């Protein structure tokens, strides 16, 4: 290391900066007057045996980078003749660590406010059962985001994306599709129970037995200058009542 490092740096002169390989901050490392030219680096400085090694490395990296970029490109491109034939290879390469989605507000931005609301059946301390009114959890999120320069993922993403996940893994009749369907159901239930125990006065005082979740979808009213008209009535998707596991009922979620 010493020979290589020192030679490449050349003698130090007042005002000259250290290092060509690792230039310290700035200014630009000026070669001191009369300094020997730095030794050759790169493949040129190697004997044939090592040059072959370097060429091999160059080839592997070049091919690897190209293949990777092509795979990522194909995973992002619309379905096409190539992905029809080699879709599985593309998926195998990209998932799970290089998964990506850049259809940001595309092709069209979401034009509806989707709110998740919940009500609960609570066993009160005196042994009775009480059904709470609907709590709009998304409205709570919205209020937490208002005037907030750094909204938390708990406010902006947690419930919103949990509902997306639920909707994507459930059929129209609210039946779960596959393993993810059942996961998303548990996830939504655990979120709403956690939030009820945190904020709902009735739930805080008793033990939640069952919960019912619904989504309320309202169109964003078009801008005044567009002269479009859309309904401003919310559309509800009401899920069946869910019983809680003892773990969930005990407030196991923090």
């Amino acid at each position: 290391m010493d020979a290589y490092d020192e030679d490449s740096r050349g003698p130090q002169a007042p005002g000259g900066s250290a290092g060509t390989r690792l230039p310290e901050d700035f200014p630009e490392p000026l070669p001191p007057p009369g300094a020997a030219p730095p030794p050759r680096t790169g493949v040129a400085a190697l004997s044939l045996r090592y040059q072959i090694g370097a060429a091999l490395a160059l080839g592997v990296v070049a091919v690897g980078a190209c293949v990777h970029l092509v795979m990522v490109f194909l995973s992002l491109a619309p379905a096409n003749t190539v992905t029809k034939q080699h879709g599985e290879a593309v998926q195998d390469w990209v998932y799970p660590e290089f998964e990506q989605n850049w259809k940001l507000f595309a092709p069209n931005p979401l034009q509806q406010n989707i709110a998740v609301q919940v009500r609960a059946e609570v066993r009160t301390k005196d042994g009775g059962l009480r059904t709470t009114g609907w709590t709009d959890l998304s409205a709570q999120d919205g209020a937490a985001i208002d005037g907030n320069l750094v909204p938390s993922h708990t406010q902006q993403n947690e419930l919103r994306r949990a509902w997306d996940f639920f909707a994507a893994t459930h059929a129209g009749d609210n039946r779960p599709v596959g393993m993810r369907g059942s996961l998303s159901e548990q996830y939504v239930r655990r979120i709403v129970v956690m939030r009820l125990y945190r904020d709902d006065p009735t739930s805080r005082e008793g033990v939640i037995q069952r919960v019912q979740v619904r989504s309320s979808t309202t169109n964003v009213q078009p801008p005044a200058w567009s002269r479009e008209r859309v309904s401003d009535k919310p559309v509800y998707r009401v899920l069946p009542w869910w019983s809680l596991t003892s773990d969930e009922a005990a407030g196991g979620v923090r």
Partner: protein
Amino acid sequence: MNRLSLTLSRGIARVTEAALGPYQTAVIRIGFAGTWLLFLLREFPHRQELYGPAGPWGWNLAKELTDDNHAFTALLWSDGQLWFECCYALAILAAAALLLGWRTRTASLLFMLGVLSLQNRSVFVGDGGDNVLHLMAIYLVFTRCGQVWSLDARRAARGAAARARGERVPADRVGPLLWAVLGLALGTATLTGRFGNGWLIPALLWTAWAALGLWWAVGRRTAWHEPRILLDVIANVLHNGALVVIMAEACLIYATAGWYKIQGSRWQDGTAVYYPLHLDYFSPWPGLADLMSSSGTIMMVVAYGTVMVQVAFPFTLFNRRVKNVLLVLMMFEHAVIAVVLGLPFFSLAMITADAVFLPTSFLRRLGALAARARGRLGRRGTRAVPPPRSSEESTADHVGFTA
């Protein structure tokens, strides 16, 4: 034919003898590490809810999903509270170390571990910003991103200056120690079967660990001149390849976002920007959003401008001047998005991704400005002491006196 081979050999010389874009890679290192660090600190009060074993996306749920999709996460190695707290703390430390460029390569490995472990543990709390960080954390491992603006660079320069004065530089102890600890951790994880879920990340970690050891061993022997240069060449080639991938990734982000928008009726009729501004989850400042969307003309110009810039960006890389204009526009747009849509970490990650295309001259000026500001701050802090000078200047003076 002759010219072709000349160009080719020049190209090969360029990509093998230097890790290109030292300032660009340093700025994205600082940017991505800083974004993740700020995010982790911001979510510190919410860490249990987002990533903890008893959060809504509970340990069992996460385990079931990662067993299925084979995503890497160290957080699920244990459902203990202590393990979680240690991982979160380590993720913070790794981000800080990478930001400062302390043992940059090792820090980048740990940074990647932190990002993947937390994000893959709870995939459903992330957004586009997390996605950018996820990819870049992996790509950064392959770069020599600590060549400038890093503690590593400062240490190397000091060592070189001391050697030039003829002083003996004490052998580095921290590096081998860090390497040994890392090896021990990797060995334990492997032997206890923690790496059973997906081979990519474990293979990457072991390879990087072996390479770090090899680098150190080869560096100690003066006689091993050529192996050392070969390793240096390989490191340069890897760096340059990763840099190309990072740049291409940024282009893919913009191209995808842009080309898919072209197909959208709302982007065509010019109302697209109005809608996100009026979603409850993305409108922290409703008054500001109303003000911005009060004019149909402005909305249309912004919508069309956004699509044009996103689609055009990859092609403008062939023209320096146009590219720089677009860079300014995109960074400005992301700064606006940070505030208006309430997406500060996404915007910071995107601005950082853009920064890889900033011209070197600009970055150097920025660096000089930062150094001057730091110097001024230092002077104000220590009035009694003679004005501090940069370590480099003072060592240079010494050389002048002794040589």
